[in-house]
C-alpha cells in the first residue's frame, strides 16, 4: 500500500512538474537582460518596456479584449437559453437532436469551423450584401458560436444538479414563467453563468485558428500577432506579454478560490 502511494505521488508530481516547468521558464526568461532567449544576461525589465512601446501588440490586445467581451456576453445569453431548454423543458420532440446540435461545436476541429464560417460569410455577402467584408463583426459571430456551446454545457449541468423545488414553489405562488426565471432561476445559476462568461472570454482571447479565417485585413487579434512574431523568430517581449497574462489569470483564479471559500463558509453557518 505504501509503495503504491509513493509511486502515485511520484508520477502525479511528475505530471505537475510537466505542467508548470515551461511556464516558470517563460516567466524567468521574461526578466532576462540578454536578447538571446537562452543566454542569461542578468535581471532586467527591458522587455516589459519594449512590450509597452510596441503599438502593434497594444492595438491587437485592445481589439482582442473588445471582441472577447462582446462575444462572451452574447454567448452567455444564447448559451444560458440553450442550457435552460435542455434541462428544464422536460422531454420534447427533437430534444436529442437539439442537445447534439448544441454540443457539436465543442468537438469540431477548429480548421473546419473556421473554414466553413468564412465560406458562409463569403456566400452571404454574395447573396445579401451582408456582411460586407470581414472584420470585428465576423470574428464576434464566430466566437459566439463556439463559446455558447461551453456556456450551455456549464449551465445545463448546474441546473441538473439543482433542486427544482424552489422553482416549483414559485410557480405554485403564481409566478409567471418570465419572472420565475429572472427572480428565482437566474440568481441560482449565477455562478455557472459567471464561469461560463469567464471561460468564453478566455477562449475568445485565445483563439487563433478561427479568427485567422474570419478576420479581414487590418483586424489582427492578439493571437494572430503573437503567432506571426513567434514564427519569425526570437521575440523576448512575447515572454513579457505571456508573464503579464499568466499573472492576471493566476490572480483571477486565486480571487475566485477565496470568494468560493467565503461563500461556502457563509452557506455553512446557518447549519
Amino acid at each position, binding site marked *: 500500500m505504501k509503495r503504491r502511494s509513493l509511486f*502515485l505521488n511520484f508520477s502525479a508530481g511528475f505530471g505537475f512538474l510537466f505542467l508548470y516547468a515551461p511556464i516558470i521558464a517563460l516567466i524567468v526568461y521574461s526578466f532576462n537582460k540578454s536578447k538571446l532567449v537562452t543566454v542569461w544576461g542578468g535581471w532586467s525589465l527591458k522587455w516589459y518596456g519594449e512590450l509597452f512601446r510596441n503599438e502593434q501588440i497594444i492595438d491587437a490586445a485592445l481589439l482582442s479584449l473588445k471582441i472577447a467581451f462582446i462575444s462572451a456576453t452574447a454567448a452567455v445569453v444564447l448559451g444560458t437559453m440553450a442550457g435552460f431548454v435542455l434541462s428544464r423543458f422536460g422531454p420534447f420532440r427533437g430534444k*436529442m437532436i437539439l442537445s447534439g446540435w448544441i454540443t457539436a461545436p465543442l468537438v469540431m476541429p477548429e480548421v473546419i469551423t473556421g473554414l466553413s464560417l468564412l465560406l458562409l460569410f463569403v456566400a452571404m455577402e454574395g447573396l445579401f450584401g451582408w456582411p460586407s467584408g470581414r472584420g470585428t463583426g465576423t470574428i464576434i459571430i464566430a466566437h459566439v458560436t463556439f463559446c455558447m456551446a461551453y456556456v450551455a454545457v456549464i449551465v445545463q449541468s448546474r441546473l441538473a444538479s439543482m433542486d427544482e423545488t424552489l422553482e416549483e414553489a414559485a410557480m405554485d405562488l403564481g409566478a409567471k414563467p418570465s419572472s420565475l426565471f429572472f427572480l428565482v432561476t437566474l440568481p441560482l445559476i449565477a455562478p455557472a453563468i459567471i464561469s461560463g462568461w469567464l471561460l468564453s472570454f478566455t477562449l475568445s482571447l485565445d483563439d487563433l485558428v478561427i479568427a485567422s479565417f474570419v478576420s479581414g485585413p487590418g483586424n489582427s487579434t492578439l493571437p494572430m500577432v503573437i503567432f506571426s512574431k513567434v514564427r519569425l523568430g526570437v521575440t523576448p517581449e512575447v515572454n513579457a506579454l505571456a508573464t503579464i497574462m499568466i499573472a492576471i489569470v493566476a490572480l483571477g483564479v486565486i480571487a475566485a478560490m477565496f470568494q468560493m471559500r467565503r461563500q461556502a463558509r457563509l452557506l455553512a453557518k446557518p447549519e
Partner: protein
Amino acid sequence: MSTSTGSAWINGPSSRMTKYNFLSRINWGRLAVVAVPALWLAIFFFIPFLVVFKISLSETAIAIPPYTSIVEWDLEEAYLALKLNLGNYLFLIEDAFYLDAYLSSIKIAAISTFFTLLVAFPIAYMIARSEGGKRALLLALVILPFWTSFLLRVYAWMGFLKKNGIVNEFLLSIGLIDQPLVMLQTDFAVYLGIVYTYLPFMVLPLYSALEKMDMTLLEAAEDLGARPVTSFFLVTLPMAIPGVIAGCLLVFIPAVGEFVIPALLGGSDTLMIGRVLWDEFFLNRDWPMASAVAIVMLVVLVLPIMLIRNGQGKEEA
C-alpha cells in the same frame, strides 16, 4: 352511408377544435427560448457545412470569390444546369499526399491521446484521493494553465526544446550528452505539445469518474487478497472507463485537426491534415480543394466519433 356522413359531421368540428387547441397550446415564449439558440446554430454552424460541401464541388477560378458557380441558369431560355465537379475528391484519392496526411493525423492524435491518458491518470487519481482543501488546490493547479494562452504555452515549449534551449543546455552541462539533441521540429515535439496542451481535458473527466468511485470496493478487493496492481486493473480501471472514453474523445478529435502545434513545434515533414487544409486555403488559395479536405475529414473522422458519443449519451440518459 348516413352513419358515415354523420360521423364526419361530428368529427369535423372536433378535429378543428383540437387544431385550434393545439395552436393556442403552443407557448410562444417557450418556443422563442428554444428557437433563438437553435436558429443561431443552424445559421452559423450547420448551414456553413452545406456551403462548404457546395464549394467542394466547384472549380477553382481566378475571381472573387475564387471558385466557379455550380449552377448555370438562364431565365429567358428557361435553362438550368447543375455542374458538379468531382475532381477535387478524385484528386484527394489519387494523390497519396492527402491519404498520408489523414493517416498521419490519426496516428499522431492516437499516440498523443494515449500518452495524455498515461500522464493524466495519476494526477486525476491523486486529486480524487485527496481531502477537501488540498483537492480544491490541486484541481485549481490543473485548471490554471488551461486558462492561460494556448499559443503561449506551445511557444514556451519552443524555448525548452530548441537546439540551444533549456533542456539541451542542461543535459550538456551535466555531461549526459555531448551533442545537442534535435527535438524541435520533430514528431516528438508535436506529441509532447499535444499531451501538454490537452492534459486538463483528460484530467477533468477522469477526475469526475474517479471521484464517484466507492473506496470500500478497493478495501474489499484487498481483503479478498488482491494485490494493488490486480485491484487497479480489475476495480479502479473499469470504474474509470466512462472518464477515460470522455477524456480520450476530448483530446483525440481536436488533436486530429490540430494546426498550431504542428506549425510551431513540428518539422516540415510533420504531416497533419489541419495544416494541409490551412496551406491549401491560405497558401495555394484553392478554396474548393480546402473544402473537399474539410468535408472528407468531417465525414470520415469526426462524424462517426460524434455519433458514437451521442449514442453513449443516450444510453446514460
